[in-house]
């Protein structure tokens, strides 16, 4: 059987009929439809401009976790790349690896966190080995701490103590960057 174009195919008799034949008569429509691309290009251009405005060359510095809700800060500086200590309601992690349970840090009067200190000392040793012949990059003891809003200072204190013991004295508290204009808007909304 011959290959035919898909579509309605009436019987031979109906096709020849003067009354019904017109219904199935095929018009000579052009096969190609022209698309209006101007609006598409406009939309693409707007999206590219918007994304370029939001582009950040630094990339992700922190591991964002569902468990950690960061507080807001209006006068923070840009976060530098450094080892990250995350404190969630469940666990204290160093660069994504759990080093202690948060509940354990809330108990007792001891300040030290041995596993965290070991990890930080190892990090320091690694940095100093890599930059041994590089005077332009001395060890600055920079560390980023991100914690959930409700974490008590008792836990933060122990994390800070571990950082100090390992030579990481420059601590950056992570927060969500907000602009003062946003704060003013929020007050006005209230």
């Amino acid at each position, binding site marked *: 059987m011959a290959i035919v174009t898909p579509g309605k195919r009436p019987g031979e008799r109906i096709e020849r009929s003067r009354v019904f034949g017109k219904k199935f008569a095929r018009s000579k429509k052009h096969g190609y439809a022209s698309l209006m*691309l101007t609006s598409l290009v406009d939309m693409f251009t707007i999206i590219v401009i918007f994304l370029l405005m939001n582009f950040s060359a630094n990339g992700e510095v922190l591991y964002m976790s569902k468990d950690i809700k960061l507080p807001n800060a209006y006068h923070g500086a840009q976060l530098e790349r450094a080892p990250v200590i995350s404190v969630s309601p469940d666990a204290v992690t160093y660069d994504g690896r759990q080093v202690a349970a948060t509940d354990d840090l809330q108990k007792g009067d001891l300040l030290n966190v041995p596993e965290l200190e070991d990890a930080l000392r190892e990090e320091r040793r690694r940095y100093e080995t890599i930059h041994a012949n590089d005077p332009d990059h001395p060890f600055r003891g920079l560390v980023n701490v991100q914690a959930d809003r409700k974490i008590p200072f008792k836990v933060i204190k122990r994390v800070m103590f571990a950082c100090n013991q390992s030579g990481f004295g420059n*601590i950056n508290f992570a927060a969500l960057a907000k602009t003062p204009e946003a704060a003013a808007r929020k007050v006005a909304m209230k």
Partner: protein
Amino acid sequence: MAGSAPQPHTKGGKKPLDAEINLVPFIDLLSCCISFLLITAVWTQIAGLQISSSGGPPDPQQKQEQTIDVKLLLTEKGYQLAMAGGTVEIPKIKGADGTPGFDRKTLADKLKTLKASLPEQSAITVQPEDAVAYDDLVNTVDTCLGEQLRNVTVAPLN
């Protein structure tokens, strides 16, 4: 063809005056740009509040300035701003949700007054109690930084 403008046929076999721009490569380029930017986009802007903890190594760039020792205590009652001249109590106030919270506005005013009287002052020690939440600590440090007290040290109260 995509993007082609209507071409009026001129008499006498002359070339049409309307130029034809090929939009397909342009669309391809834009699509690639959008894909790349969407994949590499950072949607949450993270800020860092730099503090030094007590007992840490001293900052080599820190100059010896003619300043006073200012301590800001965060207790369950509220702020306590202690400096050479005396101590200022800033009690907690009720927030929008009815729970008592730290009065950061009053603190900002007090720090502004301090900064006006001692323009060289840039150091402050924040001392929270164990029960103080990270949110309150960060907001307090943020308030200090906002009032140009750039050298914030965080130390435990007890």
